[in-house]
């Protein structure tokens, strides 16, 4: 029975399984890039015919990366990583914590990197000199007295053997973060017309409305363009309202979101609503009013004694791309009407007899926000950092060990230096040579 169990564990710990799963993941991932994802069923029937479309539905191809078989492959990779780590880690840990001073002496004479020296000094003097020489090259040696003489041992980077397992663990951490995010998080969008507030986002894919529990007010949206007319920046002045009270305020642009209560609000798009935000102020009485105006439609408003009517009757390009001039027809119920031009985003003084009005106009937008809640994202980030650290250690740091056996031979002290490294043998050979040269120089003095 135990032999069967062993081969079962061996299979799940094996590199062969890893190769198989990685290739399967690679090849199957290609399918999802060639066949459009998350489209309405009609698209697939149109492009591939009814029969293929049916097959796709069965295999969950339209949402391939969340399909049962793809997730199973990912799960299999995880299992492979976990079992491999549990299986191999104990042995690796043993190597890391090994008492190298208990090494069989006869092995030292067989190591590839080794050198022998002789010295006229006594056993203990030679040994202490060697320790000093090694320490000059950054090797801190421990010593142990044996029947054969004095055994010295120094090592660098024993923990680097764990690098591989840090990489494997990092992948598992990333998966955990992804799962936390997909079960406990959500992503969606909000379209908030300027000067209004909303408290509900619409989830991507399903369109399900989700109530935030607080309101987001877009006070202002500004679109700036380059000289070429291409969009340069989308900016929204956002205010968070809890129970009608302002609790947080922030201006956001693309790549610079707002964080609030575990949610992140990203400037993602905008919508031009073919309306204009107009403010009209009576400078004499300081009375002012804000309007949402459609072009070509008349606005009527009673302000103090005056019966104001106005409307946007024409427009004209300016030499600034995307900025237009608008012609306003304005009447206050007294005397003749006035026509004037006001630039998008601009302000104009309108003198009417004794009264002075200020008229401002701005294109009216709705800001498009992307809202996400992802409690797993920090796990993913930690996993990513672990992966980079693990890869660096696994590939670029090696476990290097040096033993020195100082013994008495024909009334002289004999020094046998041996070394080994689990990676980067060429680099170790150079390092070994540098230590042995130091020892040689110091002993010949």
């Amino acid at each position, binding site marked *: 029975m135990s032999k069967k169990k062993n081969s079962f564990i061996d299979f799940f710990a094996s*590199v*062969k399984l*890893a*190769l198989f799963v*990685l*290739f399967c*993941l*690679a090849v199957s*991932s*290609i399918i*999802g*890039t*060639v066949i*459009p*994802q998350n489209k309405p069923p009609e698209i697939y029937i149109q492009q591939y015919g009814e029969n293929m479309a049916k097959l796709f539905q069965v295999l969950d191809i339209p949402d391939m*990366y969340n399909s049962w078989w793809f997730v199973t492959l990912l799960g299999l990779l995880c299992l492979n990583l976990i079992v491999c780590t549990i299986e191999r880690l104990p042995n690796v840990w043993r190597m890391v914590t090994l008492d190298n001073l208990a090494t069989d002496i006869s092995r030292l004479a067989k190591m590839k990197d080794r050198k022998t020296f002789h010295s006229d000094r006594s056993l203990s003097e030679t040994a202490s000199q060697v320790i000093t020489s090694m320490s000059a090259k950054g090797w801190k040696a421990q010593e142990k007295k044996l029947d054969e003489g004095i055994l010295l041992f120094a090592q660098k980077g024993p923990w680097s053997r764990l690098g591989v397992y840090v990489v494997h663990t990092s992948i598992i951490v990333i998966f955990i973060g*992804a799962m936390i995010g997909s079960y406990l998080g959500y*992503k969606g969008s909000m379209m908030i017309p300027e000067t209004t507030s909303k408290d509900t986002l619409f989830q991507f894919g399903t369109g399900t409305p989700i109530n935030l529990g607080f309101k987001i007010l877009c006070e202002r949206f500004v679109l700036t363009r*380059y*000289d*070429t007319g*291409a*969009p*340069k*920046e*989308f900016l929204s002045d956002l205010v968070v309202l809890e129970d009608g009270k302002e609790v947080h305020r922030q201006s956001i*642009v*693309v*790549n610079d*979101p707002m964080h609030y209560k575990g949610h*992140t609000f*990203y*400037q*993602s798009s905008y919508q031009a609503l073919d309306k204009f935000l107009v403010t009209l102020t009576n400078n004499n009485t300081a009375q002012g009013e804000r309007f949402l105006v459609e072009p070509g439609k008349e606005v009527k408003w009673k302000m103090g004694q005056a019966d104001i009517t106005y409307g946007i009757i024409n427009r004209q390009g300016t030499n600034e791309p995307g900025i237009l001039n608008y012609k306003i027809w304005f009447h206050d119920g007294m005397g003749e009407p006035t026509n004037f031009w006001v630039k998008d985003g601009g302000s104009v003084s309108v003198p009417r007899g004794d009264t002075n009005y200020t008229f401002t106009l701005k294109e009216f937008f709705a800001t498009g926000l*992307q*809202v*996400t809640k*992802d409690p797993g*994202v920090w796990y*993913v*980030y930690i996993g*990513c950092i672990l*992966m*980079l650290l693990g*890869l*660096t250690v696994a*590939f670029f740091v090696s476990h290097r060990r040096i033993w020195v056996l100082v013994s008495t031979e024909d009334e002289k002290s004999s020094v046998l230096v041996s070394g080994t490294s689990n990676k980067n043998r060429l680099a170790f050979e150079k390092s070994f040579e540098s230590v042995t040269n130091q020892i040689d120089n110091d002993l010949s003095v």
Partner: protein
Amino acid sequence: MTSSQLLGICTLGYLLASAAYIATFIFKTKKSGVVGTIITLLTFVIQTVAIGLRWYESYQRGYGHAPLTNMYESLVFFSWAIVIFYLLMEIKFKNRLIGAFAIPFAFVSMAYASFGKGISQEINPLIPALQSNWLIAHVVTCFIGYAAFAVACGMGIMYLMKASSKNNSTDSLLATLPDLKVIDDITHKTIIFGFLWLSGGIISGAVWANSAWGTYWSWDPKETWSLITWFIYAATLHARFTRGWQGKRIAWLAIIGFFCVIFTYFGVNFLLSGLHSYGSS
């Protein structure tokens, strides 16, 4: 002198350097190898200056940004990274024959940049989504990885050429190439280096995506193909630990892996749709 003119000169430079290295390979003349190195170094310096100049030119136009934002700029940087990677390898391994298999990649990249249909050399202002410091981190890490994989592919080709030769005489063309074991070792080390940078590239892309759009991974074709590439190279690195997977199979994987890199780089932009399709401008 504009940066585009300088970069045109670099295209020619890498062509001449490739020719010199290939001559060393075919005619076994050491001198042409030295010529190759000198031309490569000179062209590399001009290319570095040109990249800096283009960066400066963008500021002169009033919408300054690092020259890493469209197909033209990425091809130039790709070529630059291949060359710097190769030069460091030439110093480390002291073998100019690698140049015959590496510099042609740098030349082809520059040639496509300079003469490719639909590759605009214009300096354009950045759309809001690209206005981020993560742009530099993400593009640089990805392309250093791509460059390493390009060189590994060259090594794979070198390996297969040498391994396929039945003629063992020391006069044969392929006998001047390093030992199979050495080529295999260099291929492996190059893949390791590329894998580290590709991992950094994917991660920096994910962090940027999350800070810009709130999603670190959306199975966008570009993201997915970079992951496919990552899977292939991860498999390659593990395959060495399985018996029977050394040498030829690793060489093939280095070549297949690079096809994945090319598809991730170009195929996605031109053949598929998605977020990264603006890279085709």
